[in-house]
């Protein structure tokens, strides 16, 4: 199975031969394949000019090239995503030298980069994040001596950053003398690049080595950046040897981060690894209520339940829905009822329910196990098929709550007892087998990623 990246590389390699290099540089810069499924490809482009141009001028050749690689492709769509404006001028450096003070950004602490808003007090604990919470709070009592490094991973919008920042803020409270630094790994990467460019790499590293608690967010972005990984490795070692605390987050577990050097992976795995799961309905309702309270608004119970039942996998999206309702209520100055809520949130809920269609689930499972979709659906007892099929059944049940007979029908009319058996078997396995649980979480992530 080709990755999106490889697929697009194949396309542009082909196109490069057919058009002038100036045109190529202009129209194919910052383009890539956003998604690829069911015979449809979505190409992301940086601006509307590129969109028009690719749609109208190069669509044929792109289509042809894609079909040569995969004849199933029937349709190409182009969509504008962020590309970042080209910015060439540099900020005046003199200003910084002469002690010109900067406006503090939203209460962010300049030394630590921590936002005081993220604390354990406003962190909502549920079955899905009990373990990371327990590990994090224990760590704050005695940083550096237990759970070092602490590696927190979980899907998008489930509160990784919150827990990391809360650790920082709690340690400041407990140990005001400790030097703490929170850094998103993208910032770390650009810091390293700049330091190397300005020949200040040593200086950069020694600054980090003087930190007592280093918190690095979204470490998966280090993937494939070997030079950065190397520098990070040295910083990591220096801190670790001094028993200084390191906290790391990622959207997946260390072994699932591609292109991570072995020595860094084994360092990450050397401490405590905890994952944040997906909150259950009750917890989602509590989260909504708490957020509403923070914003000093109130909605009816049924509205909270409606949002929580529609948005299942992402706390940030929950908050997004809530914000939409708040804006609407403010503008119209009338309290919302459930009907109106449904209308306002129609787009959001539509898209989230669409992505979990049975087709999508089956297809994702097949892809994950490197099988063809129809393999999963036909009747066979081949072992390499049976297991993925059981997983697909399990997901259809847990994610969409379909009835056992309905699921059976999808799989060439299997009896509902077979489905129940599969569901129970996978449920039991997950309890025992951590690796399987993670595997299923990865599949879920793929199902729900756009």
């Amino acid at each position, binding site marked *: 199975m080709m990755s999106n990246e490889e697929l697009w590389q194949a396309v542009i390699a082909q196109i490069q031969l057919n058009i002038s290099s100036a045109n190529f540089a*202009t129209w194919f810069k910052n383009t890539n394949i956003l998604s690829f499924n069911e015979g449809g490809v979505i190409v992301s482009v940086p601006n*509307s000019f590129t969109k028009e141009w690719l749609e109208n001028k190069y669509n044929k050749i792109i289509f042809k090239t894609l079909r040569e690689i995969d004849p199933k492709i029937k349709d190409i769509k182009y969509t504008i995503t962020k*590309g970042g404006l080209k*910015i060439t001028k540099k900020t005046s450096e003199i200003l910084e030298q002469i002690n010109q003070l900067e406006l503090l950004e939203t209460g962010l602490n300049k030394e630590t980069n921590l936002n005081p808003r993220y604390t354990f007090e406003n962190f909502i604990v549920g079955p899905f994040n009990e373990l990371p919470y327990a590990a994090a709070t224990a760590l704050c009592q005695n940083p550096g001596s237990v759970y070092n490094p602490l590696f927190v991973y979980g899907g998008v919008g489930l509160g990784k950053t919150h827990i990391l920042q809360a650790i920082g803020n709690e340690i400041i409270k407990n140990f005001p003398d400790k030097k703490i630094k929170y850094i998103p790994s993208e910032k770390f990467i*650009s810091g390293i690049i700049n330091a190397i460019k300005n020949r200040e790499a040593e200086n950069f590293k020694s600054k980090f080595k003087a930190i007592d608690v280093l918190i690095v967010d979204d470490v998966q972005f280090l993937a494939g950046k070997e030079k950065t990984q190397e520098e990070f490795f040295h910083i990591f070692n220096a801190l670790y040897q001094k028993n200084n605390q390191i906290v790391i987050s990622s959207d997946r577990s260390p072994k699932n981060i591609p292109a991570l050097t072995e020595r860094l992976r084994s360092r990450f795995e050397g401490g405590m690894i905890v994952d944040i799961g997906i909150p259950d309905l009750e917890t989602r309702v509590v989260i909504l209520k708490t957020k509403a309270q923070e914003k000093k608004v109130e909605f009816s119970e049924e509205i909270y339940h409606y949002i929580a039942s529609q948005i299942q996998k992402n706390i940030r999206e929950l908050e997004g829905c809530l914000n939409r309702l708040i804006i609407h209520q403010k503008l119209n100055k009338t309290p919302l009822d459930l009907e109106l809520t449904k209308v306002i949130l129609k787009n959001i809920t539509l898209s989230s329910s669409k992505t979990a269609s049975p087709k999508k689930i089956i297809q994702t499972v097949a892809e994950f196990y490197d099988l063809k979709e129809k393999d999963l659906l036909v009747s066979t007892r081949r072992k390499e098929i049976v297991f993925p099929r059981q997983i697909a059944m399990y997901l259809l049940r847990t994610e969409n709550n379909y009835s056992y007979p309905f699921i059976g029908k999808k799989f060439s009319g299997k009896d509902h007892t077979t489905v129940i058996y599969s569901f129970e078997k996978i449920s039991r396995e997950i309890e025992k087998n951590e690796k399987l649980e993670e595997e299923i979480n990865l599949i879920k992530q793929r199902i729900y990623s756009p």
Partner: protein
Amino acid sequence: MILEILQEKLKQGLFVVEKIITKSTTLPILNYVLFKTEGNFLNLSATDLEMGIRWWGLSKIEKQGKIVIPSRVLSSFIGFLPNKKITLKTKDLNFFIETEKNKSQIKGMSSEEFPLFPNLITEETMVFDSFLFCRGLNQIIDIPAVSSSRPEISGIFFQFKKDHLVLAATDSFRLGEKKLFYSDFLKEKNIPLDKEYLFILPQKTAREIINIFGEKKRDLKIYFSPNQVTFEILMEETPFPQIQLFSRLIDGEYPNYQEIIPQKFTNQIILDKKEFLNQVKIASLFSGKISEIKFKINSSKEEVQVFSQSADLGEYHGSLKAKIKGETLSVSFNHRFLINGLLNIEGNQIIFEINGQEGPAILKSDQDQSYFYVIMPIKSR
């Protein structure tokens, strides 16, 4: 293509579109203007791929067609012609410009190579008085700084609220905010917006908007769409677009700047704007490379002392009378930032509120509540 148009009109059109043409070496076609007939109109287009401008002018069209022409030679040439009827013709890729006494032939290129303009997709629209809109925009246009690490602050932040538009800009050392109340100049032209719209407009686009629409007292229509924003004015003679400018937006979340606007102050100073500006300008002559001007705020004497010093040049002392609240305090500011803010404040009196030597200060007018300017001091040494 064969058409006739007045020199004056064509000159105006070229003037509008050619501004955004930047010399592009990678894609030479971007140095060209697209000439295209559309019914009874001549349409000119230019783009730098981040924004695009289209202009339409009524003209007598005999034969439809299109061609792209290098902008530089063209606008200079048109500028020299008398304000009379001009005939434009194309033959293959040659462009003929003829008047009674002049004849020229310019080599063009095929319009096939010219970037395609996206369709105007729109959710809602909003209409402003172009003169007042641009005047408001002008009050903060110089503030954003081009920063590669924080592209979101390199543009102007637009927030269309229910009854007013908030414009904000910062370069992380200072921040300006301007409010435009719909009721001040919209009359009954608009239906209230369904949604709030937020976007970050590149500074370059904002400058073009001021250049193009700032002098005209016309209806400026804003079209909102997901990835871009379009500004449009119609012709005076017929309800057809005269100029459309569209731009992509800067991706990112604008900082929640409300939180840094000072609500309290240690010192409040009320000054005569002209006199204050004058003192700052004089002091700036001696402030040297680092642009620092020191103020000593003496509440018992009701006086602000101004001091600047340069190692090469010498020094300056000045003073001015003011109404002062708070203890005596010394504080330094960058004169460029101060002057830039002061020039944009309307009214005769300035309210200058300071928060010690290292806190954010705010400048505002005693009369006009729609504008303020937050500025950070220079750390005194």
